[in-house]
């Protein structure tokens, strides 16, 4: 803790601040604002009610209007303070509102109604988190189903991708065979073909194979990625051949060499690829949108999209689900981010 504190308050000048301190702190704070501003805004907005979201100018914190219980009314009435006129200072409940005029009652005297203009009353508000934005995701929408679809696709596709890519990388880095360089060049060459170009042919293949509207239709086409093969191959090249020879002398089969020697030694690179794969799959939108058309197959990204209709958008649900969608990926990133630096740093060999 003391180290964190001294790190955060480190300065160049001793005693008083050097001008570079001002510049660096200003820059860093600006960076924090730039990075975290939208996220904080998103999280706070996800707790706002629909009315509050429509309000202009927007407010930072979510507010909700206080209500008063009045005898003779089933529902609580919206509470206002009167700022002008004979009732000035009184807290009133609003019963009706129309054409710039509000009909209010004083809770202590529920029988008498007063008619006031809107500028005579001011709403009583407090900070309140509209948690119903979240709870209705589970009640009105099948959030868990979408979450499960996304999770299943992400986990399966990532595992499959790691397996396929590492096996390809092993072959391309450790076996001498005719055409090895050509194969590698073709693999890397596919990076130059934009996804959108192969979208239609890919769709036809997936449909032919009967994977349309199936989660496997999303998982299988993404199983082999040129980036992953290349990343792992570059790492595996740095594993000395003598270790493999030693394993061969130790009577290990090639399959065993792959599992017991290559995979553990490539762990840093595999971790990097796993993080990338999880992020790609979780955030994937275009391809699932094409393959999955039935609501029960929707991923979270597709469900988010469905909140945005042509005529109106369900902002509270959209924002709440966006937050929930971000959480897992943020957690994965937080736990695995240290591997990104170490993995990429050691990919170039040492």
């Amino acid at each position: 803790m003391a180290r964190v504190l001294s790190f955060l308050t480190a300065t160049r000048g001793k005693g008083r601040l050097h001008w570079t301190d001002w510049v660096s702190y200003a820059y860093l704070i600006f960076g924090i604002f730039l990075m975290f501003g939208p996220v904080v805004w998103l999280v706070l907005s996800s707790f706002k009610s629909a009315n509050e979201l429509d309000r202009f100018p927007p407010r930072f914190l979510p507010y909700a209007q206080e209500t008063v219980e009045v005898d003779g009314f089933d529902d609580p009435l919206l509470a206002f303070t009167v700022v002008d006129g004979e009732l000035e200072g009184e807290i009133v409940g609003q019963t009706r509102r129309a054409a710039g005029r509000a009909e209010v009652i004083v809770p202590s005297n529920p029988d008498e109604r007063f008619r006031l203009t809107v500028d005579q009353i001011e709403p009583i508000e407090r900070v309140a988190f509209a948690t119903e934005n979240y709870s209705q995701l589970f009640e009105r929408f099948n959030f868990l189903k979408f979450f499960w679809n996304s999770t299943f696709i992400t986990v399966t596709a990532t595992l499959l991708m790691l397996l396929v890519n590492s096996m390809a990388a092993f072959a391309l880095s450790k076996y001498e065979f005719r055409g090895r360089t050509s194969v590698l060049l073709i693999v890397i060459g596919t990076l130059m073909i934009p996804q959108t170009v192969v979208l239609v042919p890919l769709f036809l293949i997936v449909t032919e194979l009967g994977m349309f509207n199936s989660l496997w239709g999303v998982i299988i086409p993404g199983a082999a990625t040129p980036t992953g093969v290349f990343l792992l191959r570059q790492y595996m090249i740095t594993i000395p051949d003598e270790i493999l020879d030693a394993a061969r002398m130790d009577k290990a089969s090639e399959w065993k060499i792959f599992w017991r020697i290559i995979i553990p030694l490539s762990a840093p690179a595999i971790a990097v690829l796993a993080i990338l794969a999880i992020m790609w799959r979780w955030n994937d939108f275009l391809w699932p949108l094409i393959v999955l058309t039935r609501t029960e197959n929707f991923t979270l990204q597709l469900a988010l999209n469905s909140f945005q209709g042509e005529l109106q958008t369900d902002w509270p649900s959209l924002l709440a689900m966006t937050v929930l969608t971000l959480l897992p990926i943020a957690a994965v990133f937080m736990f695995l981010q240290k591997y990104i630096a170490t993995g990429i740093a050691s990919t170039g060999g040492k």
Partner: protein
Amino acid sequence: MARVELKQVKKSYGSVEVIKGIDLDIQHGEFCVFVGPSGCGKSTLLRMISGLEPISDGDVAIDNEVVNDIAAADRGLAMVFQSYALYPHMSVRQNLSFGLENIGTSKAEIAEKIGQVSKMLQIDMLLDRKPKDLSGGQRQRVAIGRAVVREPRVFLFDEPLSNLDAELRVDMRGEITALHRRLGNTMIYVTHDQVEAMTMADKIAVLRLGELEQFGRPLDLYNRPRNIFVAGFIGSPKMNFIKGTVAEGGASITFDTGETMALPQSGFDYQPGQKVTLGIRPNHVSLVEGGSVSMSVKSVEQLGGESYIYGALKDGTLLTVHLSGQISAEIGEVLTIEGDADEVHLFDTESGLSLRHD
């Protein structure tokens, strides 16, 4: 029994022939060293015996059984690599047990074997460490242990000591020799260091450019080198070579400098007028007042108990003289020397082959 035989073994990469037909017969229990300058193909030859490198032509036989098409793992060999090639992610214990697990040895037996071997190699207190936490010498022991624990028919060593410092190298040399005595297995050892070869080997195979120059016991190679290359490669410091021509009558040699020296009258075949190269080891050269050959001193090394004089003959041929005790010689001084005629070697200058006959 584990006798290793090579019959006209060849290896080529495309059109480049790196091993040009080698015949070798290593008897059971022999410690055979392949020695040669870098690029001579000694490591390739070892890998061909191990099965890690396929052979292009010829036969490799172990116990009279041709193993050309048998996989490395099934030849019953174990190899110690130059870089040790320990599995970095496994503990020492796992490194030792990996090979045994692969052949389906029971857990109890593995534990027992690891116990024995680790005690023998004094690595029993390191069993739970990872290779990165070991010193160079300890890694070397683990690498040897990994080979020993599998009880192979033949041990193959690929320059195992080249990554160690000088002192440790001498220690490990002794340990490997002791290991060979204790186990009695056939061992094939590759090195570029002729001192290692001389001190450890029962038999030395000197290789150059993919060809076997000579195969025999260390002292035979030292005393009766078959050609100039072996004569120059075996022995430290290097043998001196002086070119000349056999004089009329054959009793002496006239060097290219014009000086002469008497030749041994038996043991060599030469003709008067033949261009020959005289080889003589530095310790068989002595400083003699009024000796037949003169040499100007280039540098002097005094080690206390012994001294080396490095000089050049009149035509620039370099010469080393090894003397016991201390001497007084100035750089630039011209000394006269004499060689011991009974200790000279004669080679045909053109073919490089020894003129010695038995």
